[in-house]
């Protein structure tokens, strides 16, 4: 399908799947060499950027995120900003003020989150690449639920200039695509040092040499609490990998179990400071009662326009950095993070990658998600959080389907700066495994 044909049916597709918060009305791609979309927490000058939050409604950034700017320079056309959980706070993209993306395999189910709209766009639109953002699993989770490839490079590989912060020490831009070749095609375009983001300045050069993964560690801890259908698809995936001569060893990585609590302490602590700037003064809604004192005014705007999950995480994060709790929670979580990194480093002494299922279950129905408690939904991230906490690159590959045809994904993790092996793996895997494309109903 040509780019123009994609643009022609964008409205119809969005009506059916709600992947976009906002999208182009252009009917022709003009000189553009390719089309791409981006999660709504990446700034772009031509669209409002709201991070799925009403508090930023009406906000038009004055600068492009570096990743978006680099794709545009390479001839890309940004066709829209994708729906997401508010500020990235969620696993199912249901915590959105603007629209919940629907799973292309079953519209009664979630696309995953928080980059759900990006995964949906990458699945539904042909020849598409979408930028997502991962803080604790927000690229691999939706890639897994939508049955596509999702790559999150090492923390610091892609500039975060223009990425609206959730947790700055965790946020990473990632790529989502049906076709794994696109990962290796566009990562070099957006990666690299950027004077606007000091954390991008220490990276070694990205070199894609097609180095294969030869040996894999599978942590035993990862298999606990996995649904039988996911376990079955995963074991099947392992057999395929072994059949092409990859060594698979079951290992112990007990530290993985501590990643979730440490992650939620650090991510919410950082988030609560990042969200402090949204107070109805400089951008977004400014329609409160100006006769109040500024404290009361800020509170009224924040009360009205932040969603419940954003409020929950602000409170959690503020609590963990309070006097008396800071050492007990925040400082300890920093230590756990170092221990998780050490556990990965130990595994990489003997293996090229650590492999687990991506999510413990296939995409749930919206009716079931509504019944979940916050802690239940946080716990669903226990396999995607560890590499995010460690800042190590990771990749989702589709590896099976359940009886309803819902996709299952597996997650490869390699050492810092080793994106090459992941991209090689994805391309290799795509030849071994028959990835299903859902029938688009629009």
């Amino acid at each position, binding site marked *: 399908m040509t780019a123009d044909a994609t643009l022609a049916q964008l409205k119809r597709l969005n009506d059916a799947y709600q992947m976009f918060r906002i999208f182009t009305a252009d009917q022709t791609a003009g000189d553009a060499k390719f089309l791409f979309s981006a999660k709504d927490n*990446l*700034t772009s000058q031509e669209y409002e*950027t709201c*991070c799925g939050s009403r508090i*930023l409604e009406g*906000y038009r*950034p*004055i*600068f492009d*995120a570096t990743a978006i700017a680099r794709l545009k320079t390479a001839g890309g056309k940004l066709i829209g900003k994708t729906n997401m959980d508010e500020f990235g706070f969620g696993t199912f993209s249901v915590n959105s003020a603007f629209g919940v993306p629907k799973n292309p395999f079953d519209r009664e189910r979630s696309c995953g989150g928080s980059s759900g709209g990006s995964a949906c766009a990458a699945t539904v639109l042909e020849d598409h690449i979408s930028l997502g953002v991962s803080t604790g699993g927000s690229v691999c989770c939706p890639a897994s639920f939508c049955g596509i490839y999702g790559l999150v490079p090492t923390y610091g590989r892609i500039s*975060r*200039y*223009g*990425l*609206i*912060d959730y*947790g*700055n*020490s965790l946020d990473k831009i990632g790529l989502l695509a049906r076709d794994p070749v696109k990962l290796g095609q566009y990562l070099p375009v957006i990666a690299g040092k950027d*004077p*606007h*983001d*000091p*954390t991008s300045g*220490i990276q070694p050069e990205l070199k894609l040499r097609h180095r294969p993964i030869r040996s894999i560690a599978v942590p035993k801890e990862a298999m606990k609490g996995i649904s039988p259908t996911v376990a079955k698809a995963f074991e099947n995936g392992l057999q395929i990998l072994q059949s092409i001569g990859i060594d698979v060893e079951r290992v112990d990585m007990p530290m993985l179990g501590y990643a979730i609590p440490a992650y939620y302490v650090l991510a919410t*602590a*950082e988030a*609560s*400071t*990042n969200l*402090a*700037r949204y*107070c109805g*003064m*400089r*951008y977004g809604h400014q329609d409160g009662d*100006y006769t109040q004192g*500024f*404290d009361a005014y*800020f509170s009224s705007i924040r009360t009205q326009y932040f969603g419940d999950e954003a409020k929950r995480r602000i409170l959690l994060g*503020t609590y963990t*950095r*309070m*006097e008396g709790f*800071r050492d007990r929670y*925040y400082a300890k979580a*920093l230590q756990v993070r170092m221990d998780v990194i050490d556990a990965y480093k130990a595994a990489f002494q003997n293996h090229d990658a650590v492999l687990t299922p991506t999510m413990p279950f296939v995409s749930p129905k919206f009716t079931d998600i509504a019944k979940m408690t916050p802690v239940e939904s946080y716990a669903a991230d226990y396999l995607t959080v560890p590499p995010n906490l460690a800042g190590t690159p990771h990749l989702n590959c589709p590896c099976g389907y359940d009886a309803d045809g819902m996709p299952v994904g597996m997650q490869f993790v390699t050492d810092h700066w080793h994106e090459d092996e992941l991209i090689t793996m994805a391309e290799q895997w795509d030849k071994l495994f028959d990835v299903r494309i859902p029938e688009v109903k629009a």
Partner: protein
Amino acid sequence: MKIGLEIHVQLPTKSKMFCSCPTTDAPAPNTHVCPTCLGLPGSRPVLNRQALVYGIMLAKMLGCTIADTTWFSRKTYFYPDMSKSVQITQYDHPIGVGGVVYLDGKKPIRITRIHLEEDPGKTKRTADMSSLVDYNRSGIPLAEIVTEPDLGTPAEAREFLTQLVADIRHTIDLPENGERSIRCDCNISVGKERCEIKNVTGLKNAERALTYEMIRQVQVLKAGGKIDRETRAFDEARGVTYSVRKKELEADYGYIDEPDLGIYHVGMLAKSITIKESPLNMTLRLAKQYGIEEAKAKQLVATSTDLAALFEQLAAATDVPTALTWATGAVTANWKAFTARNVPAAEIVDIVKHLRAGQITDTQCALELKSYMTGQSAESAAAAAADLEKIIAGYLDEHSEVVADAQKNDRAANRVIGFVMKQTGGSHSSAEIVEAVNRQIKQRL
């Protein structure tokens, strides 16, 4: 009574601390701003290395221990002029800790720490009770110097601030744009509990605010009341302090590490930075090293540290008494003109050397110095000096009692100086007249 100070100094970097906006005066409100200092979503800080260098220089000046690694933290508070509602500052690992400054070279005032942080914007109240915010100042680099409560009186606090500010200006070449770039928070306790007076601008105001607060606390305690730990503000116009809010503890700001900036390994950088000797240290050293009166040393340094350095050269080339006589005499008298001329000081040393070798007389030496230092021709310098000498000599001839009086009274010469100033009508600098009068009186004794 205990007084401790937190002094904020704007560092003279060309661009702001975390972005490339200029730090110069802006043509209008909110013109020297960018996504970073406005805190727009998705913007990030990039550290200005020069701010770190200035921080290290000041830490050295204060005798602080400089950390091998230093990093930044986030301090969260909601205030309209703080664009991110988060201030990037230093908490756990400031640039320097544990220094000491000797007030007037004697009383030790301990320095708790020195850290770097960004300045917030400015809030301006309008007549109709609304507020306007200007973010031009947002992100200007600040060094905050925190003292222990070692100061005993408001006057002593002012004296300390005066000395500290002079040292800071000298060390980091801070321009003299009034006292506006120095602000301080003043902590004072007369009894047990202390109050903090926030954001006092200028040295005189610090003393005024502290004096008012001292009297207020004494009166409260005398009346049987209790001092509450609180933050107060100083009203410059009325000269009073007033309560702003109950004081939070520093830890209540919920500090976390600033994840957008890394850890800075500054050990090597700190080693490579040397700082100029502070004026006070130079004064003390000169007095000790050359065995001269501290007042004389202070006079030299206060005129200029370059003049004091020239004195050292003269002492090396001739001897201490000769060096002191000429450095505080004719050289000081012509110093202002000399600094404007931008010619080498070595020639001054040569002239005084000739005197010491007996090649020229005192009068010739004074003339040559004047001619060289002011750029006047030798003839006109000689003629002008001769006129001046004649006027003084004439006066002293008529009033011989002045010479006699000068033996007992230090101020006797003032009469002569006043007369000569009137007579010459500004054609000679006051320093020059003082020098000539003192010299002639000395000769007649």
